[in-house]
Every structure is written in C-alpha cells, then in structure tokens.
C-alpha cells in the first residue's frame, strides 16, 4: 500500500471511528436519560448489596460445627446422646433404655400354639393373658405409649371371653370380681398366668441398673474427621473411623476388600483429587470450619456469578436496555435524523449495540470489582486479600458481558423483527434461558441446554473456576463424600465442553467462541432485517 493509500485508509478508519464514537455516545446518553435504565441498574446493585450482607453475616458468624451424622442429639429424651447410646448398645428411641439402665433378659414364653398355656413365677412379663397374682409391682407402671400397664387405671373386665368378645389396648389391664386380672402389655408380678388361644406371653428379668455419667452432646459433633489437612495431596494417608460407628457394624461400600476405609483417587499428575470413595460412616462428621469456610466462600462467589450476574442481570438488563435500541428510534421517528447521515444501517445497529454494551459492561465491571474487593478482603484465609479470587470474578464479569452482548443482539433483533410483540418473545426466551441455566447447573452434560445462551456462560464460569482454583474439584469431592453441606456441588461442576481434552482452558475458549458466534449471528440477522426495512 502506498502512502496515499495508507492515508486514505486512515481517513476511512478514523471517520468510521468518529461515527462509531458519536452513535455509541448518543446511545449511552439516551440510556442514561431513561428512568427504566436507572431502575434496572439500581435493582441489580441492590441485589448485590443484599447478597453481600448475607455473605458478611455468614462469614462473621464463623462456621458453627455441624453434626453431620446427627448422633449428638438425644432423640429419646433419656439424657444420653445417640452416640453414647450407640456405644452402650442401648436404644436411642426408647427412653426406658439408656446406658446403665439395665436390660431385659427373656427366659420363657407361651407361643400362639404352645401347650400348656399357663406358667407361674416371679417375672417381668410381656403379652396378653389372665393373671392370678400373688404380688404386682405397681411402681412399674406406664402407659399405652410405653407398653407398660398403667396400674393406676384398671377397670372391671367386661362380660364374655377376652379377645373373642372384647379387646384391651396395649398397656391396659382389667380386673374380675375375684381379684384376678386380664392383662395386655408389660408388667412385673409374681403369680400364675394363663394365655388364651392365639395370644402370646413371654417372661424374663431385668438386669441390675448402674449409673453411667451422660456424655456432653458436643463430644459427638465433628467426632469423625478427615485426618488429611486438605492442603498437600501428597500427605494423604489412611483415614480411620474415629468414632467407631463403622467398625461397630462394618461395611465395605467402596468394595476394596477393606471395611471402613477411604480411597482417594488422584489425577494423572497426582496433584489433584478427582474422586473420593468412602465406606459408610467413615469420616462422616468432619470438622466444618476446616473445609466449610473455603468451600462456602467459593460457593458464594460461584453462586453469585451464576445466579445473580449471568441469570438475573444477564437476562434482565438487555430486556430493558437492548430491546428498544433501534426499534424505539424507528417508532419515535428520531431515526430519520440519524439515517440521513452517511451511515449504513448495518453500522448503525452495530454502534447502537456497542453503546449499550459499553454502558452495561461498565456497570457489570464496577459491580464485579466491588463484589470482588469486599469478599476478598473479608473472605477466609490468612492473607489480607485473596488475590486468587480476582480471576474468577473477572471471569464472571466476562461471562456476564458476553451474555449481555448475545442477549442484547438477540433482543434488539427481536425488537426489529417483531416491534409489537418482541417483548413477549423476549420474556418467553428469558424464561427458557433461566430454565436451561438451571438444567445446566444440575445436568451440565445434557444436550438440550446447549441450545441456550446461559448454558455457555455458566460453562464459562465453570471453566474459569477450575483454572483459577484447581482444587475446587477437591472441595466438591470432599463435600459429596463426607457430607459437608456447602452447596458447592450444586453450583459448580467441572466444565463439559473440553473437546475430550479435560482442559478447562479449552472449555473456556469453546464457551467464549460460542457466545461470540451467537452474538455475531444475531447482529447479522438484525442487520439483514433492518437493511431491507422501509422506514415510514
């Protein structure tokens, strides 16, 4: 190219530049003069502020230890936590049974078809039958609920045969004129019992009770932890069942031939945990503060990025800002001023979108950086500021801006093609995008959500998270394997579109490319439609 040609091309380019500058500037100023712009942008900022408030609250409250396996609770109200009852082999649902409570030993029974059907002695009994008692322990009394006969409430028996003509509830007795009883339930007595046909009675004795000191519930919180400190993968050792609840009833859920252990599966380089296979009841109640702080922090960032930025702001901002970018000018007639200038209609659409994107993109960037600053300052960790969070926040910003571009181009095109009903199409599309976004989070490899824009933006975030925080995979594995309920596995799963390379960088590039292609295609459709539009 000779000097003249270069000068000419420079002129053409600078002129294009100036036109682009003028239209983008006009667009931004126009948007700034609309109330709806400020409303939608302030709502977005308000949502972020609320999320931050929740975050600050959660971080400041510290992470309360959570009893993942629930064995610190005293379900039967006998003063002993479930963990201690398990240790002593007493029932955690029967208040009469607790460590040191003494237990029942059966010594004999009359079955439904046994013969003879009567027995005498001084026992603890359980069943139904006629009792001719020498002595009854009226202190051993209860209610229908415990099955122990309530000796304070005994009525005369009805006429006829028990069980044939009438029936007693469990835990009740009735008396005959001669002082004998019909009993139904548990009782202690010395005497003779005869059991009717088809009834059952067993007898035995209670062992001697002793006092066992109840243990505090806190002993059974975080009592089965992970021995590995969660930092250096090479230090992973053998995990044991600290509280013995697996060893008490051993299982080999991971089928490696060793009951009550944990298998850690590392990636090819051996520096990342890819999968954790644990037997049941091993490491099931780890110390939350060690793992929950970090994974909750990450869950907050990823969740905010996906739900608030991509799916809320990403869908709503274009609806309010981009739908009328060109349509409103056409309807107002102000388009005539702009189109009487030497500017191609296709250029016009492009610069309009650019103006919208500059405004919305700046807003997103400011919001993202504010969120990043606050959370990285107060987030967990020893350093003053968590610099490793910034790439993720910037990735969220990038995903949101790409979504704004794609939806903006799409909505603007819809506004052009269907000026009257475009808004309804956009709302339907918005709902579609939201649903597909939710599907993408739960089933990232399903193929239908790939037809949505949000899918690719969420995948972009998944990819950038894995690049910036490679050990996120570990946290999701620990969360899934040991039940640390941080929500991380819901909000984050490894990116899918790696083209078989397993590389998050490939997934990132694929997502960016798809989003850009969608944007370009939508702009192209809008331009083609607008170019051949007659403007009244």
């Amino acid at each position, binding site marked *: 190219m000779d000097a003249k040609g270069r000068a000419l091309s420079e002129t053409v380019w*600078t*002129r*294009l530049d*100036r*036109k682009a*500058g*003028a*239209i983008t*500037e*006009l667009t931004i*100023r*126009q948007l700034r*003069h609309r109330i709806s712009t400020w409303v939608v942008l302030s709502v977005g900022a308000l949502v972020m502020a609320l999320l931050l408030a929740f975050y600050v609250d959660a971080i400041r409250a510290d992470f309360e230890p959570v009893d993942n396996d629930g064995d610190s609770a005293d379900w039967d109200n006998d003063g002993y936590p479930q963990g201690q009852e398990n240790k002593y082999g007493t029932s955690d649902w029967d208040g009469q049974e607790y460590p040191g409570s003494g237990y029942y030993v059966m010594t004999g029974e009359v079955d439904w078809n046994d013969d003879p059907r009567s027995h005498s002695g001084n026992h603890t009994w359980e069943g139904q039958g006629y009792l001719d008692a020498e002595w009854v322990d009226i202190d051993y009394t209860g209610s229908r609920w415990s099955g122990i006969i309530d000796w304070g409430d005994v009525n005369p028996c009805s006429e006829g045969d028990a069980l044939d003509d009438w029936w007693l509830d469990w835990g009740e007795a009735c008396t005959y004129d001669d002082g004998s009883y019909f009993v139904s339930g548990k009782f202690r007595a010395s005497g003779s019992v005869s059991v009717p046909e088809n009834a059952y009675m067993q007898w035995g004795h209670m062992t001697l009770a002793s006092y066992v000191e109840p243990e505090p519930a806190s002993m059974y919180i975080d009592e089965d932890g992970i021995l590995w400190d969660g930092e250096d993968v090479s230090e992973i050792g053998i995990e044991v069942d600290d509280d013995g609840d697996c060893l008490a009833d051993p299982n080999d859920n991971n089928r490696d031939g060793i009951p009550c252990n944990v298998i850690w599966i590392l990636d090819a380089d051996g520096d990342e945990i890819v999968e954790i296979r644990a037997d049941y009841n091993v490491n099931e109640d780890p110390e939350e503060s060690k793992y929950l702080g970090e994974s909750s922090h990450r869950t907050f960032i990823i969740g905010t990025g996906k739900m608030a930025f991509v799916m809320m702001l990403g869908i709503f901002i274009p609806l309010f800002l981009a739908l009328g970018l060109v349509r409103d000018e056409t309807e*107002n*007639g*102000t388009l*005539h*001023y*702009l*189109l*009487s*200038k*030497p*500017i*191609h209609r296709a250029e016009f659409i492009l610069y309009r979108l650019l103006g919208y994107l500059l405004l919305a993109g700046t807003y997103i960037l400011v919001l993202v950086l504010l969120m990043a600053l606050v959370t990285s300052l107060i987030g967990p960790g020893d350093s003053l500021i968590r610099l490793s969070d910034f790439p993720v926040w910037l990735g969220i910003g990038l995903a949101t801006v790409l979504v704004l571009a794609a939806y903006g181009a799409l909505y603007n095109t819809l506004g052009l093609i269907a000026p009257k009903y475009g808004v309804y199409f956009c709302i339907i599309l918005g709902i579609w995008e939201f649903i597909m976004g939710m599907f993408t989070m739960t089933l990232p490899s399903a193929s239908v959500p790939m037809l949505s824009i949000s899918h690719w933006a969420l995948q972009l975030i998944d990819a950038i998270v894995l690049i910036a925080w490679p050990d996120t995979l570990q946290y999701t594995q620990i969360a899934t394997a040991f039940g640390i309920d941080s929500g991380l596995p819901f909000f984050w799963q490894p990116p899918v579109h790696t083209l078989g390379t397993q590389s998050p960088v490939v997934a990132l590039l694929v997502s960016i490319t798809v989003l850009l292609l969608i944007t370009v295609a939508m702009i192209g459709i809008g331009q083609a439609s607008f170019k*051949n539009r*007659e*403007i*009244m």
Partner: protein
Amino acid sequence: MSDKTPAVLVDQASKWYGEVIGINDVSLAIDGGVTGVLGPNGAGKSTLFKLLMGRLKPSQGSVRLFGVDPWTNTSPYRRVGYVSETERMYDWMTALDFVTTLARLHGMTREEATARAEHVLDFVGLSDVQNKELGKYSKGMRQRVKIAHALVHDPDLIILDEPLHGCDPIARTSIMSVIRELGSQGKTVIISSHILEEIERITEQIVILHNGRLLALGNLHAIRALLDKHPHRILLTCDDPRHLASEFISEDPVYGVRFPEDGKLEIQTNDLSAAHAILPRVIVDSGAAVSAIENPDDNLESLLGYLIGGDS
C-alpha cells in the same frame, strides 16, 4: 462523479403500499436553485422525499441522488441535508449538542462538529439559545434546529419536508429567508408545502403533486399566468358594494359582479393580473372605502382544480 449528473433524478418511479398508491410514475430531474414541491396532504410529497432519502424502495422505476441509488448506498448523504417531517427530537439535548452529535456522523471530530454546529445555529438565528434543551423550544425553533442539523455538513442538496408546518409567522419569515439564502448560495433546495402562498414567497420553480401523480413542473409564474387567463374572483370588503360594482362592470377585464353578502363585492375576471392592474385606479376614482382585498381562488386548491380540469 460527474458534475453533469443532476442532484436529483427520478425516473418513472412508483411507490405503492399494498393497495394504496404513494407516488405514481413520477419522473423529474432537479439540479440547482430552490424547487417547491406542492401538493395537498397525501399527494405523495413525503413518499417522494423518503424515496430520495433511501427510506423507501421504489416499487417501480428508479431514484438517483447524484447518480447513486440511495436505497443501497448511503454515500450521497455526504452531500445531502434532510429535514424530515418528524416532530420528535431528543428533548433532553441542547440544540448545540443535537447538531454537534449529528455532525459527528459525517466523520467530523468533536471540535470540528462543535464549530460547524455553532456556525449553522447562528445561520438559522438560534445562537443565543443554543445551550437550551430542545424540550423547551417552540415549534418554530425546533424546525430551525432541524434545518441547522441538515446544513451542518454544508450539503449541496437540501431536502425540507414541510419546514413551515405549524410555525408562527416570525419563524416562518425567518425560515423562508434562510431557504432563499441557501438558494442564492447556489445550492439545490427542495422544499415541500401544501400552501401555495408560502412557496410563492420562496421560489418560482415548482413541482405539483396530486394523488401521487406529477401534475405540473416548471415556473410558478407561467403556471399562474395560465391560471390567470381563466375565470377568477376578487373579493372586496367595502362600504358601498353596489356603487363600486357599477364602476367595475364597465372595465375590460371584468365580466361579472356578485354580492355574496352584506358589504362584500365579488368581481369575476378572466385576466387576474389585468384586473389587479386596474383595481387601485377604479377604487380611488369611485371614492369607495375598501377595507380588504382577497383572492379566494389564489390558492393551491383552485390551482389544482384548474390543472385537473385542464387535464380532462
């Protein structure tokens, strides 16, 4: 681009919207001077302008601006200024802002654009209010801002769609003088109106559209002269119509008189200019007190009536 190419060339162009005809088989070439496009509402003036500005695509025939099809190519707009009939503006902008922004679409830098905008706003007489928001402008001022934006790049061709519509008399006069000034600068100016008298005060070169058809094209005076040879009325408001009538009836151009209402005299003539020539003398001689002279036929409707009548 050859200078021989006319600024505007319309060749057998038609435009219809479904069943409705916008313009029908119009051919014309305009280059230089001020041309008035006359026609009642719905005659096709705006359709013609929108075809020229590439807003609409001709259903048949062709439209060229400086030899280029404006529907597919925006390059002629570098040399064209267009004042559309639209009344909406960006009310939150100042006039200077508005004109500067649009000037930048011609590829000017911000500084060039501001300087040009100040210049043209001064030219249309708005420099003292250029920093006021457009929302606070009167109708006439807004029309002048629209003209300013069309002039900001010093175009060779200026197309104005009803620029006088809805303006107060002062704005009207000032806009007319701006347009005459542009004409005298040697630019091609095309202005539409549905009021004959307005156009008459600006230019002699006219195009008359009616029902989408090109009815007449040429010098307004020639057309008027044709019109003058046909029955015409002059309406006088005076104190003694009967006496004045007797004075007029003997004059040559006058062939009849009527008394449409009290204190009014209608003179019927075949030669309007001759009748106007004798008018002052007869009135002075009669000593009658005449308070008003009106030409009820001197409007677009009667011109059209005549032209259509002449057609059939």
